């Protein structure tokens, strides 16, 4: 029954996406571990980690597409949920260091010893347990999104206003996490991780496992998001995107639908953050920077808003381009390229890569469709 929920109305594009991610998730770790380093088929560990990072971003992009593409909520604060998930994972990894830190304190992380803290703050309790930390990866962003959304959607803060206060939210968190007194490592964040579930995070095999896990989570995130948008609930959510007041007048509790989608999306972003941290090896407050969240929005816009697959594609394409650009002689021009991408996509490709490709494809199949005027928006 669950599989029916997840796979109903799956289109070719969806199957293709699932197949590709699954193939990458199996093949890349295999090619990394089983093929010897000299072989042309070998995938270096660094490449694998880099692509693991891209796939985490893809999951973040899918979570944002769920709220923006299907519910019309442009969140400029999704980086906050991503970072909160990352911090939850980071706290678990910090506790796993135990007495192997520079100061050798079995309980306190190094930065607390450095700041002369005597005991663990209460909110660090429980993070030595993996299941608890994983629960927090979901709960911390989820709860924040729930409370924030509860207030915002109930008082009908919409459109631009909502975007600006989500930005204020992530900015406030950025300032808060920069403070040493908060107990999250201040400026430097959390780093120097050693073990995850008893395996060395630096080890090749652990990295391969993390990569596979990222693929699994990306598939799960995609299926859940898809399950939501094709369900009856999803139809209402899309109706809210297109004509919020009309949906409300039809008797739907608009705020509750929005709250549900927003919270699910935040949890998904948290999972992406949690997978990102062990692969990158650090989490610091700059992840909360408003610019990061806006960049996430552009991934979705580039790939194609309201397509899920497109969001993931956009995240990978933009980040791959960023890596290529910023590592070569073109480095000073990356911001020009990124800025131009923002302008170009919004003006010339409002539907993104996937939407534009689809349009071209349809045009070729049945040329010059009889002009059916698009219905004017209801409001």
């Amino acid at each position, binding site marked *: 029954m669950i599989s029916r929920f997840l796979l109903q109305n799956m289109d070719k594009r969806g199957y293709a996406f699932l197949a590709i991610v699954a193939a990458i998730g199996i093949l890349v770790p295999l090619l990394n571990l089983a093929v010897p380093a000299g072989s042309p088929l070998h995938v270096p560990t660094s490449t694998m980690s880099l692509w693991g990072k891209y796939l985490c971003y893809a999951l973040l992009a899918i979570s944002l597409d769920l709220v923006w593409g299907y519910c019309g909520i442009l969140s400029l604060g999704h980086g906050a949920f991503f970072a909160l998930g990352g911090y939850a994972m980071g706290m678990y990894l910090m506790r796993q260091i135990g007495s192997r830190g520079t100061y050798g304190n079995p309980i306190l992380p190094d930065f607390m010893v450095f700041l002369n803290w005597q005991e663990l703050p209460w909110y660090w309790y429980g993070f030595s347990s993996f299941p608890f930390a994983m629960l927090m990866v979901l709960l911390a962003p989820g709860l924040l999104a729930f409370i924030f959304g509860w207030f915002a959607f109930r008082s009908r803060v*919409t459109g631009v206003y909502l975007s600006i206060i989500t930005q204020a939210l992530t900015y406030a968190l950025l300032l808060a996490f920069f403070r040493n007194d908060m107990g999250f490592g201040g400026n430097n964040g959390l780093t120097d991780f050693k073990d995850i579930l008893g395996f060395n995070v630096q080890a090749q095999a652990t990295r391969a496992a993390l990569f596979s896990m990222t693929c699994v989570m990306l598939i799960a995130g995609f299926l859940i998001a898809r399950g939501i948008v094709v369900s009856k609930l999803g139809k209402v959510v899309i109706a809210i995107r297109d004509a919020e007041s009309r949906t409300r007048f039809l008797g739907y509790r608009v705020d509750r639908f929005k709250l549900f989608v927003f919270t699910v999306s935040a949890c998904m972003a948290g999972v992406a953050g949690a997978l990102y941290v062990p692969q990158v090896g650090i989490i610091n407050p700059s992840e909360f920077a408003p610019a990061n969240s806006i960049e996430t929005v552009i991934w979705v816009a580039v790939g194609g808003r309201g397509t899920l697959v497109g969001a993931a594609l956009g995240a990978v394409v933009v980040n791959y381009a960023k890596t290529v650009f910023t590592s070569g002689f073109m480095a000073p021009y990356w*911001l020009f390229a990124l800025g131009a991408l923002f302008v170009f996509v919004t003006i010339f490709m409002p539907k993104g890569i996937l939407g534009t490709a689809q349009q071209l494809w349809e045009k070729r199949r049945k040329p010059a469709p009889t002009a059916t005027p698009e219905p004017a928006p209801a409001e």
Partner: protein
Amino acid sequence: MRIVSCLLRMIALATLLALQPGVASAQGADEAFTRLGADSFSDTNRAIELLIVNAHPQAAAIIEALAAGRLLAGAGAVVIKTTDGKILDARTGSALAAEPAGLAPVRLNNGVRRTIQGALGGLGLLNPDPAKRISAAEAVFKSRDVALLPVLEGAIAKETDAKAKAALRQAQAAILVAKSDAPPFDRIAAIDVLRERGDQDALATLRSLPADSSPALKEAQGRAVSAIEGKLALWRAGQNLWYGLSLGSVLLLAAIGLAITFGVMGVINMAHGEMVMLGAYTTFIVQEVIRTRFPGLFDYSLLIAVPLAFMVAGLVGIAIERGVIRFLYGRPLETLLATWGISLILQQAVRTAFGPTNREVGAPNFMSGAVEIGQLAITWNRLWIIVFAGLVFAALLAILKLTPIGLQMRAVTQNRRMASAMGIRTGRVDALTFGLGSGVAGLAGVALSQIDNVSPNLGQSYIIDSFMVVVFGGVGNLWGTLISAMTLGVANKLLEPYAGAVLGKIALLVFIILFIQKRPRGLFALKGRAVEA
């Protein structure tokens, strides 16, 4: 009590007489010279005091020589060795043919050095220049040297300058308060003098009252301390208020252009901060040109930069509107993304052209320095920025309310299609409105170049704050922007002493997030149909 004060007056009179040059007690001076030759620190100390109290005509020269280690003394003779090697008789100042035998420099220790410091202060008290007397009195106020009390009293009686007299009295009071053998009545009067003075130093002096003082004295001191503390707290609040208004005017300058583009046109211009940055860099270029070509014009550099910055930012704004935003009307979220892209491009362009480091923008003469009003320190640049913000606000209001283009802008805001039907070229009005908003941002850049680092990131640091101001104030209402900028500025600065800078800012952000829940359209919301557009 009357008798005591009568007695005091007589003592003062006696000291005054004693201070008249020529009437100096020959005996006291003789004793001083004997003690200088005794080669003991306590004798040297006493000798210095005697020289001062007796106002020996050579006192200044002797003490200065002593401080520099050039005072030689021995049996029966004290001489000053000048820096160019001459030998002078310390008593008369007349030159001696040869250095008397058996003399050695008078030795110093820290105790003697302290006495010398105090004595030089005491000498300053008798300086003919009132300004020097005041600074000497201030020095005595801080050192509280009991030995100088007679000198002070003499100087007070002689003083004609009102300001110098007050300063001398305060110095006397500072000594009396701590002097446990002074008459209680005088000490209470001294506490009153300190209370009048009412600053941090007076507070410190009052707090130094010996613990074994009489209850009446302690009570007077307690009352004076709390009175001063109350007054100081008031001044501090005033200072914070001033800082708040200053921050508010900066926020107003940064946000008011946004209030036009966002409020009037409904365009979210994320590149607004970069317009501010362009204004600041225009100021930098103007100053560079003036420095190299016309150094005499430096004081007018900001005046020249103001119209140029307006034009540069305004033209860039019009270019952005015609080139990009025009295609995105009615899609505010897409506008946000496109203008964010533009902001990245502008930042990188400036970084490429001027380098990533901070650029130096100087302050013209009329904007440097500060003025003190009571305990308030008011810097000229902040004051001018407040004035400038007020002028920009008034000019903008006048343009919107009094000029034809302002009328057209408002018409397009209220009903675009109707305005178009009435023959207003809406496209042109859009471009001009956007240009106006951007130009005002450029003006903000001129002002901010005076108080902030001129770097490619200048705009980034203001964009979020500006949005908060506009959203809090309510869209489409310039007065709302004014009130919200001032409220946020003052609230921020009043919170800072209690919560710290970062927590205060976080608290304000959270407050605005909550406030938007309560009034989703800001403090002063537009009413009517335009709201849902």
